[in-house]
Every structure is written in C-alpha cells, then in structure tokens.
C-alpha cells in the first residue's frame, strides 16, 4: 500500500499540472503524454551521465516547461486549436524524447558496476522504499507544490489566469494578455508534469519512451475524483483534492490488481472508463440534477460543475432568487 501511495504522490504533481490547464485555463492540453517522458528522459540521461540528481530532476522540470512553451506558442501565435496544438507537440516530442534518451530507454540502477546516483539512492540504501518515511517525504513535496499553486492562483497574475479560463472576453477587456497567461500557465503545468516524470523515472529505476502514454487520463481521473471528494467550492480544497484524487486513484488500481479484479495491463482501460463515467455524470441532466440536489442540500451555495468547465459552460445554477433578467440575451 505504501508503494501505491508513493506513486500517487509522485503522479500528484502531474495531476496538479493537469488541474491548471484543464480546470483553470479551460485548455485541453494533451502535451502531458509527451512532456512527462521528456522530463523523465532528460533527468535520466543526465543522471546516467553522472549529473547531480537534484540538478537532473530540475532539468526534467525545465524540459517539461519547454514542451509547454511549444504548445503555448502553437496555440497563441499560430492560432492552432488547443487540442490540436497539444497533440502536435505530444507527437513531435516522441521523436525528441528518443533523441534525448538516445534510445527507447535509459536504466538508472547500475552503470559499469557503479550505482547511478538518483534522489532515491539514500532511501534505497536505507531500505526505505515503500515505507512511511518515503511516503512522508513525497507527501511533503506534493503539499509544498499544492501550497505554491494555491498561493499562485490568489496573486494578481493568478487571478488573471483564472479569468482567462473563466471568461476570456472579460479578461481581455480587463487588460489581461490572455496569450501571455496561457503560455505561462502551460509552462508551469508541463513543468510540473516534467518534474513528475523526472521523479517517477528515478522511482522506477528507468526512463522509457512509452512512460507517458495515456497519462493525461490519469491526470484527469485524479482531478475529477479529487474534486468529487473535496469539492470545488474553495480553491484551496480543489487543489488539495487533486493530490488526494491521485492517491485514491492509485490505491483503487493497486487493490484492483491485488484482488485480481484487474491485471496491470488494464490500468489504461480503467482510467479511460473512470473519465468516461465522470463525464457522463456531468453531461447527463438527470444525474446532474441528483448531484445538484445533494450538494445544494449540503451547502447554501450552488453546486459546482463536477467536471471540465467546457463541458458545463452554463453558469452555475443554484438557489438564486428567480430573476427573469438573468436570462441570456435580449
């Protein structure tokens, strides 16, 4: 179980990145599948060649951010639709990742009879992998980034970023360069994804060109599960929920495998199904009505849409006084 929680905490960084694009920026960013590997591959090849593990990990973050920059530029400068822009980056990165790693994978255990130094080496030597100590360390890292994101979103720039995703017309009228907020947020997001990849490569002891495939769904599932648990009424809880969601998601998977409900290879299918179910819930009027009633009875404020902003673009409906003037248009 500790191992599953450790994985969940490492993937929480990826999920936080997905949260920033998907929820805050309202930008369906598939760069993730590529930038995770870019981060992992960059960190791995550096450490394989003897670079300081912390420096290598940081390089993974930077490489992920660079991938986010590419998607940002494709979208803002060339006006390519978000989905397509990020698919282009993701596909292009596959080749780049092969070049970075000089092959399909990089091992991080031994080289010429010497142990390759990674950030986990001290923990491995102390036989503390899959222990509560390691869980505590990784939790501290995930919570530090959670706190940083909560802080960021409350700054003037963070509010501008939120407005960019929430109401671009208002953002522009308010003097916000939505191109700039998008580029910066995509860089932060994919930086986190790259960092997640860098840490995960060291955790599993190798980087592989396939390691990022399908992770966008893992990120989405974590965001959706986490937000369902902790709600989206308070930003701090919404962000924290992403970390919780990532851990819960990993635990579900590990129990499904341990109890032989599913095999390791089924993980991607489970992610896909989980996201489908969550999206169906958010799109189906009847189910949303139930969910709405349940949350409305819990809180005086209106329910938040359960999933992606673009899938529930209508304004929050809630127990506001009936007001004919709130009807859209004249």
């Amino acid at each position, binding site marked *: 179980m500790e191992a599953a929680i450790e994985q969940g905490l490492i993937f929480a960084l990826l999920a936080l990145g997905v949260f920033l694009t998907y929820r805050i920026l309202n930008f369906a960013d598939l760069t993730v599948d590529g930038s995770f590997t870019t981060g992992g591959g960059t960190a791995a090849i550096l450490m394989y060649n003897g670079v300081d593990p912390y420096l290598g990990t940081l390089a993974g973050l930077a490489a992920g951010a660079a991938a986010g920059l590419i998607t940002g530029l494709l979208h803002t400068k060339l006006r390519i639709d978000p989905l397509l822009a990020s698919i282009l980056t993701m596909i292009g990165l596959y080749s780049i990742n092969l070049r970075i790693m000089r092959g399909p994978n990089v091992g991080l255990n031994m080289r010429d009879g010497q142990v390759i130094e990674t950030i986990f080496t001290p923990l491995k030597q102390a036989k503390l992998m899959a222990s509560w100590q390691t869980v505590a360390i990784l939790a501290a890292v995930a919570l530090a980034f959670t706190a940083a994101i909560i802080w960021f979103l409350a700054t003037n720039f963070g509010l501008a970023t939120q407005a960019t995703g929430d109401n671009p017309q*208002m953002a522009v009228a308010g*003097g*916000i360069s939505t191109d700039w907020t998008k580029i910066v947020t995509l860089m932060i997001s994919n930086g986190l994804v790259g960092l997640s990849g860098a840490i995960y490569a060291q955790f599993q002891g190798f980087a592989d060109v396939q390691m990022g495939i399908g992770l966008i769904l893992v990120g989405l599932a974590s965001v959706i599960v986490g937000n369902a648990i902790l709600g989206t009424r308070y930003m701090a809880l919404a962000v924290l929920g992403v970390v919780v969601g990532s851990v819960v998601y990993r635990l579900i998977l590990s129990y499904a495998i341990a109890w032989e409900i599913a095999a390791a290879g089924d993980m991607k299918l489970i992610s896909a199904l989980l996201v489908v179910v969550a999206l169906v819930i958010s799109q189906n009027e009847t189910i949303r009505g139930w969910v709405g009633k349940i949350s409305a009875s819990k809180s005086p*404020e209106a329910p938040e849409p359960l999933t992606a902003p673009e899938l529930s673009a209508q304004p929050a409906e809630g127990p506001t006084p009936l*007001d004919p*003037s709130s009807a859209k248009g004249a």
Partner: protein
Amino acid sequence: MLSLTGVSKTFFPGTANERRALRNIWLELAEGDFATVIGSNGAGKSTLLNVIAGSLSTDDGAIVIDDRDVTKLPAHRRAGLLARVFQDPQAGTSPHLTIEQNMAIALTRGARRGLGVGVGRKRRSAFREELEVLGLGLESRLKTRVGMLSGGQRQALSLLMASFTHPRLLLLDEHTAALDPARAELVTELTVKVVAETNLTALMVTHNMAQALRVGNRLLMMHEGEIILELDAAQKRRTTVADLMDRFTSVRGQLADRSLLS
C-alpha cells in the same frame, strides 16, 4: 479626448456576404462628454464600440484616445484607457471568481499583474466601500462567486468594475437591454450617477430613445454604418422621441421600426 477620423470597417470584404459596418466615421468627444448612441439593428453601433475598444481592427482611419493613437493597439493594451460594459450580463465578469476577485481584476486593469496578493485587507475594505454605493447589499457578499448573482446584480457589478478605477473612457453597449424594466432602470440610474460623479467621458448605446434623449449631453444616431444625426445638449432638450422617429422614417424611406420605441 476621443477622436475617430475616417474610420471604416467592412466584414467579409469582396465576398457575397460583404457588410460595411462602419463607413467613414468622424467623431470627436470632449473630456466629460456623455454621448448616447441610437440606431436600428445592424446600424454598426456595437462595431463602433468594438473598434474603439480594439476587439475589432479598423480597415481605415485612426482612433486617438487622450492624444494617444491606439489604432493598432490590441484590446488588452487599450484597457488602461477605457473600460466597457457589455449587453450580456455574463460577459463583463468572471463567474467562478468571487466578487472581490473580480474587483481586483478590474482594479489592476491596464497595470502590470505580478505576484502580489490579489485581494489583501486594504483592497477588501476599499471594495466594500465601493460596493456600498450600489445599495444592493453586495458589500456583505465579497466572497460570493459572481456566477451566483442575478443578471441585474452582475450588470451593476460590471458597471462598478468598469467605473471605479476612473478609466479615461467608458463604453456601454446596451448594458441594460437584457434586464427587466425595474433592474434596467436601476442600472441606468447608477450609470448616470457614476458618470456624473466621476466626470467620465462615456459612449452609451441604447435602444431606448427616451433614455437616449434624457441621459447624457450628446446624442448620435447611426444608420447603415454612418452617423446620420448628431445632437448637442441644447438640441437634445428640444428634441422629442417623435422627432427621432420621424428622422428614422425619412432616412430609411419607409415606416419606422416600431420596436425601436420600447
């Protein structure tokens, strides 16, 4: 203060769908002028405001605000000079952000946004004071998400957000049209009050001719992309809704659109 010299805008030029939305517009507003703009649907009123704000580019002509040629400036870089309220009450605010967060965005309009705290204690108490002026009780709901407000409340907030930072120019595009009569009246009153108190220069599009005559010190009538009538304060006082209707009728050479008399 605001000057448009020979501004034109054509949509889909050279195609079967070509629409000449603005034809050689010349307009001069002095500091403190409050001009109302009327005209039938499709006359080009919104397009006029959109080219001034920069959300649409011009084909020809120049736009100068405060001695600054903004013709080529993108919309977000003009925001330090002007503020807008749109017809759609949803358009001017960010629904998932709270009232105070929306106001913080308005407060930093046109300024560099860094990593300072968006809503600190000082700002919060200033926002509370500003909201009290609306008399809608919003000052006690600073942490309410704007998506929870009614259309009228949202529009009043949009108006406050547009005006409390004292922009050089205020652009209002039928900002009461989507509201029921009582709330429309409330927002109109607020508009008049805000513009008078802060001596803003403003352009207000309205479909209500009586209001266009009553409010402001100038009136512009548009038709098919042109300003076909300009009244100053004295002329406005002598003009009646019937006069304006006659004017419409004659220029269109057909029966006036009765719906304009709402």
